[in-house]
C-alpha cells in the first residue's frame, strides 16, 4: 500500500516532471555528442537508434505496465530468447508457416506471463522471485531445445530483415514500425481504457483498488500476460533482426528494460509515470551506447565505467530538476 502522505509533493512532482526532463536531457546528450563526434547527428544514425533498440522498446513498454502496477518482471530477457529459439526451431525443423509461428510464439509468451501473474496474485508470491524463477525456466527451456544457435532461413523472416522502409533522411526496419505501433497502442491502453487506469490504481494502492471494487485479479494477470507477450513479440523482432534463435540472446535485457522505464520517469514503487517514458528511456540508453561506439577509444573496462558515469550523471540531473520542480510546486 502507498505510504505517500498528502504532503509528499516531492515524490509526486518528480515522475510527472522527470518524463519531461528526460526528453530535454536526451536532446542535450545528443547535442553534446554531435559536437564531440561529427556525424553522430546524421539522420541515419538517429534512425539506427530506433532500428537497434526496437526490440528493447517493445519489452520496455510491457515492463512499463508491470512497474506502473508496482510489480517487476525479470523474465523478459529469457522469454525473448525463448521466443527466438522456438521460432527458429519451428521454422527450421518443422517448417511451420511463419505467420503461425509468430502467433504461437506470442501465445507462448502471453501464456508464460499469465502463469506468472496468476502465481503472483492468487498465491501472493513476490513478483521479483516468481519472475526470477520464470527467467531461469525460460533460459533453461532454450537450452533444452538446443544449445546451438539456429539460423533462420524462412523467406518471410529473411524478407523482414532485409526490407528497409524509406523515411525522410534514411531508412528504418519493419521492426521499428511494429515497435512504434505497440507503443501507441500501449499509450492508448494506459490512459484511455479502464484496464490502464486500473493498472495505475493498483500501483497507487492495491488494497484500495480492491476495496473500490476494481477487477484487481484479472488486471494483474493481464499485466504479466501482456509483459510476456511483449517479450515474445520482442523475440520475433529480434529474430527478424538477427535471423537466428539462440539461448544466450538478450542476456541482462531485463535490467536494460527496467532501467529504461525508470529513467523514463516511472517509480518502481508503482503508480507514477508514463508509458511514453519507455521510449525516452530506451533512447537514452541507446544514445549512450552510440556515443561509446563513436568514440572508439574506450577499452572494455572504460566502456563500463563510462556507461555507469553517464547513467549517474543522467539520474543526478533528473533528480535535481525534479527536486527543484517540487520546491516550486509547494
Amino acid at each position: 500500500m502507498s505510504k505517500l502522505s498528502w504532503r509528499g509533493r516531492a515524490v509526486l512532482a518528480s515522475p510527472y516532471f522527470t518524463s519531461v526532463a528526460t526528453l530535454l536531457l536526451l536532446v542535450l546528450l545528443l547535442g553534446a555528442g554531435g559536437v564531440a563526434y561529427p556525424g553522430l547527428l546524421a539522420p541515419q544514425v538517429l534512425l539506427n537508434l530506433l532500428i537497434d533498440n526496437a526490440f528493447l522498446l517493445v519489452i520496455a513498454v510491457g515492463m512499463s505496465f508491470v512497474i506502473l502496477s508496482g510489480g517487476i518482471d525479470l523474465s523478459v530477457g529469457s522469454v525473448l530468447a525463448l521466443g527466438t529459439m522456438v521460432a527458429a526451431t519451428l521454422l527450421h525443423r518443422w517448417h511451420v508457416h511463419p505467420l503461425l509461428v509468430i502467433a504461437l510464439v506470442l501465445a507462448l509468451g502471453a501464456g508464460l506471463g499469465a502463469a506468472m501473474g496468476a502465481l503472483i496474485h492468487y498465491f501472493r508470491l513476490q513478483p521479483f522471485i516468481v519472475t526470477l524463477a520464470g527467467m531461469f525456466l525460460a533460459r533453461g527451456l532454450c537450452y533444452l531445445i538446443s544449445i546451438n544457435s539456429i539460423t533462420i532461413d524462412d523467406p518471410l523472416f529473411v524478407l523482414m530483415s532485409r526490407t528497409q522502409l524509406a523515411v525522410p533522411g534514411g531508412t528504418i526496419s519493419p521492426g521499428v514500425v511494429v515497435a512504434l505501433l505497440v507503443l501507441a497502442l500501449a499509450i492508448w491502453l494506459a490512459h484511455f481504457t479502464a484496464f490502464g487506469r486500473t493498472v495505475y490504481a493498483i500501483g497507487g494502492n492495491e488494497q484500495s483498488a480492491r476495496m473500490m471494487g476494481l477487477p484487481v485479479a484479472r488486471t494483474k494477470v493481464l499485466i504479466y500476460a501482456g509483459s510476456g507477450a511483449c517479450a515474445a513479440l520482442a523475440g520475433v523482432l529480434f529474430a527478424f533482426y538477427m535471423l537466428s534463435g539462440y539461448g544466450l540472446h538478450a542476456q541482462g535485457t531485463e535490467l536494460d528494460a527496467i532501467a529504461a522505464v525508470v529513467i523514463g520517469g516511472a517509480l518502481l514503487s508503482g503508480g507514477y509515470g508514463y508509458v511514453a517514458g519507455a521510449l525516452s528511456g530506451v533512447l537514452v540508453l541507446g544514445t549512450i551506447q552510440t556515443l561509446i561506439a563513436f568514440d572508439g577509444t574506450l577499452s572494455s573496462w572504460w566502456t563500463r565505467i563510462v556507461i555507469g558515469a553517464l547513467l549517474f550523471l543522467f539520474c543526478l540531473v533528473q533528480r535535481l530538476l525534479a527536486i527543484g520542480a517540487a520546491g516550486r510546486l509547494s
Partner: protein
Amino acid sequence: AKPLVIGFSQVGAESEWRTANTVSIKDAARKAGVTLKFADAQQKQENQVKAIRSFIAQKVDVIAFSPVVESGWDTVLREAKAAKIPVILTDRAVSVTDDTLYVTFIGSDFVEEGRRAGKWLLEHAKNAAPDGTVNIVELQGTVGSAPAIDRKKGFEEVIAANPKFKIIRSQTGDFTRAKGKEVMEAFLKAEGKKINVLYAHNDDMAIGAIQAIEEAGLKPGVDITIVSIDGVKGAFEAMMAGKLNVTVECSPLLGPQLMQIAADVVAAKPVPKRITTQEGVFPAEIAAREFPNRKY
C-alpha cells in the same frame, strides 16, 4: 595518404584470453599506424550489431570483429557490403547464407583444438583404471557458447576412436576458476578415485580444478591427468609445478595478422578466405622452456 581506419568490435572482456586478444590487436594497430575504432560489446550480439552499424555510419575503411555467436549476421553484414566496407572476422567464424559478405576469417578452429586435446590424450594417457578404461571428467565452457560446443565436439570425435576412453561426467564451469573448482569438488565427491583424466575447455577452469584436486588430497597431473586449452601464463606455471599435463594453444595474438590482411584487403590484394593461426600443443615437459617467451 591518410591512415587506414579499422573499426573493431570485440566480444567483451570476459576472460584473460580475450583481454590478451584485445591488447594484441591494439598494439598491432599502433605499430602499423592504423587508427583503430574499438568497441566492446559486453558479450552481447545486439551491441556488436550496433557497433558495426555505427562503424558503417562512420565510413571506416575496414570492419573487423570477433562474433559472439555464429548465426544472425546476414542483415548487418549486408549493410556493410552495401556501404562497400570489407569485413574481416577474427577468432570465430560466422554462418551466413552467402560468404561474400566477409572477406576472410582469421583465427583458430575450436573443433580442431578439441581434436588436438583428444589426440594428445590418446597418445599420452598415463593412468587408467585397473580394467584399462580411462574415466574422463569434462569441464565445459558456458552452456551454448561456440568454443564450449566445438571443443566438446572435437574432443569427443577423437576419443570415440578408443572405446576405453569414457567421459563419465560433464558439467559447465562457465570458463571461470571459481566454478571450475566448485564443479570439480562435486565430481571428486561423486566419483572419488574413479577419475583418471580431466578435460577442461579452458585453462582457468583447469586451474580452479587443480586446487580442488589438491584439497581432495590427490596429486593433480599425477593421480589425474589434466588436459586443457588456451595456453595462458597461469597454465604454464601450473605445468612447471607439474600440476597440469598439457595445454593446447589457442592464440589470441591475432593483431599483426589482422593488420596485415586489412592492409592487403584495402590494397585490393587477393587474400585467402580462411587463415588459421599457427598454434602449438604444449606438454608440461617443454613448459619451463616456453614460459619466458609467453606474451599472455
